[in-house]
């Protein structure tokens, strides 16, 4: 499938029709959408057009946005692409959905993900297999697989995803789009199904960087329902920073495909015309995968305790004793990768093993944060490849460890809470993408670089 062209928005209704035509044409094959809100979206588009005519339209008037299906849209299915929640419907709107609606965006539907956002290529969805629209034999990247694919296939102007270890940036890179994970605490996560509370952040994917920024501006800010956002509004009032010095950590290039590493280095060379570029070293980057996997698994196993076959979706045998019913429901309705992460997380937080594993991971994370802070005193942003490889073909066998290692360049932004953006290197998705990390709450700097 060829890259769709993104024409300017003439009217909300016309733009929506274009996007729905792309859905009708491609989504039988691509399978990005879990649910298309066709009727609701058409009604909304008409109303938005009226507001445009009255001169009262919001900042996202007429933009068509898809939402990852772990973000609540009231009255719609909220499956997290798991059998556990296959029939579950959201009873309220997530904060980001409220803000999209208030800004006059048109929400076109919910899109697929790896089950509970646990995966790096999109193949861990238990509901459907999303394909990469740029090469249908290849994975779209994960976990926000449908977000990347729907953007790449021209089925929306932008898509929301969630990013716990790179889940927005990986599909953006694999689908040749821009992807942005803001500073931890910049966007409210009220209404996002949590994976790991100290790492999760909602992000945006788009083929257009300016659109991505508009969506981010519309959904950012403090929300009393998510206390991690309490600094967001104050930070917005800060004088915008400007990037002058780019640091290139040598560790970012270890284990990266030669072709992608060469492309990123060439891009960095071009940036030397406008910025001072320095090689830097962050030694703990070698340990990102273990630090991340242990921290994430501990938080994930705790977050998953609410899925007990009693309160949400999949129902266990209610005539059985509670814990037996609970355990059997979880075994029947949760996928392999979910169980693996719950088991590791449970083990490393058990009283007798916690000091050697979970506490140690948190101490290592602190060391990593200190190293980042120290390096970023002297450089404004960091640059490196987004993903170590391009998207692989379906069926290429990966061990769990190989799958976890694919995240190695993105997860440090989650461990340190820094913002990060990925940008395609060329019009060919096989050339890979470059990634920039910024300082806390200097998200805007990342939109001006590259």
């Amino acid at each position, binding site marked *: 499938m060829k890259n769709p062209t993104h024409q300017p928005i003439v009217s909300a209704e016309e733009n929506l029709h274009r996007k729905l035509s792309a859905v009708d044409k491609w989504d039988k094959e691509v399978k990005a959408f879990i649910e298309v809100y066709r009727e609701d979206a058409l009604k909304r588009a008409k109303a938005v057009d009226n507001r445009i005519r009255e001169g009262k339209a919001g900042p996202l008037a007429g933009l068509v946005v898809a939402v990852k299906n772990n973000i609540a849209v009231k009255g719609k299915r909220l499956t997290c692409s798991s059998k556990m929640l296959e029939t579950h419907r959201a009873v309220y709107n997530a904060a980001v959905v409220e803000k999209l609606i208030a800004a006059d965006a048109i929400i076109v539907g919910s899109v697929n993900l790896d089950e509970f956002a646990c995966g790096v290529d999109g193949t861990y969805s238990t509901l459907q297999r999303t394909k990469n629209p740029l090469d249908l034999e290849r994975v779209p990247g994960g976990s926000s697989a449908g977000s990347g694919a729907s953007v790449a296939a021209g089925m929306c102007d932008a898509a929301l995803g969630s990013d716990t270890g790179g889940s927005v940036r990986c599909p953006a890179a694999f689908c040749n789009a821009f992807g942005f994970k803001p500073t931890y605490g910049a966007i409210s996560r009220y209404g996002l199904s949590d994976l790991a509370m100290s790492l999760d952040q909602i992000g945006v994917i788009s083929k257009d960087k300016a659109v991505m920024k508009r969506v981010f501006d519309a959904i950012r800010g403090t929300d009393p329902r998510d206390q991690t956002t309490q600094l967001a509004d104050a930070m917005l009032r800060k004088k915008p920073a400007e990037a002058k010095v780019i640091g290139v950590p040598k560790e970012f290039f270890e284990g990266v495909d030669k072709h992608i590493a060469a492309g990123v280095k060439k891009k960095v060379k071009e940036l030397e015309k406008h910025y001072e570029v320095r090689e830097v070293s962050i030694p703990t980057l070698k340990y990102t995968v273990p630090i991340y996997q242990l921290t994430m698994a501990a938080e994930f196993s705790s977050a998953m305790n609410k899925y007990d076959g009693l309160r949400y979706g999949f129902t266990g045998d209610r005539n059985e004793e509670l814990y037996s019913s609970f355990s059997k429901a979880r075994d029947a309705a949760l996928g392999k990768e979910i169980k693996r992460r719950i088991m590791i997380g*449970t083990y490393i937080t058990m009283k007798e093993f916690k000091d050697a594993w979970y506490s140690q991971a948190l101490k290592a994370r602190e060391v990593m944060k200190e190293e980042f802070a120290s390096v970023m005193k002297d450089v404004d942003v960091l640059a490196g490849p987004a993903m170590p490889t391009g998207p692989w073909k379906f069926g290429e066998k990966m061990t769990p460890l190989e799958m976890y290692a694919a995240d190695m360049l993105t997860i440090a932004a989650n461990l340190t809470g820094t913002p990060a953006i990925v940008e395609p290197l060329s019009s060919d998705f096989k050339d890979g993408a470059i990634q920039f990390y910024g300082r806390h709450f200097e998200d805007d700097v990342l939109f001006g670089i590259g």
Partner: protein
Amino acid sequence: MDIETVRKISEVARLHLTEDELEQLTSEMDELLGHFKSVQDIKPSKPGHAKESHYMHDLKNAMRDDSVVACDPEQAEAIRNEFTKRDGRYLTAPKSIK
């Protein structure tokens, strides 16, 4: 990692796993934890002052006054629908103590 340890973890994790699943997880967890063990090599920058990183930013406890707000009838209905048995005005949950 041995299968009996994995069985114990599965009980704590409330996962009713089959023997095949237990066997596979034993070998996978053994391999993964063997790799993750490298975190134990990272030493704190100030010896003896290892800090655990729980929070990203210095946030303050945010307290608010309790206030009575209306319950969303749709949310209440959604919760009610998850329970199939009733006892008068109470919803009945499965027995938790044998």
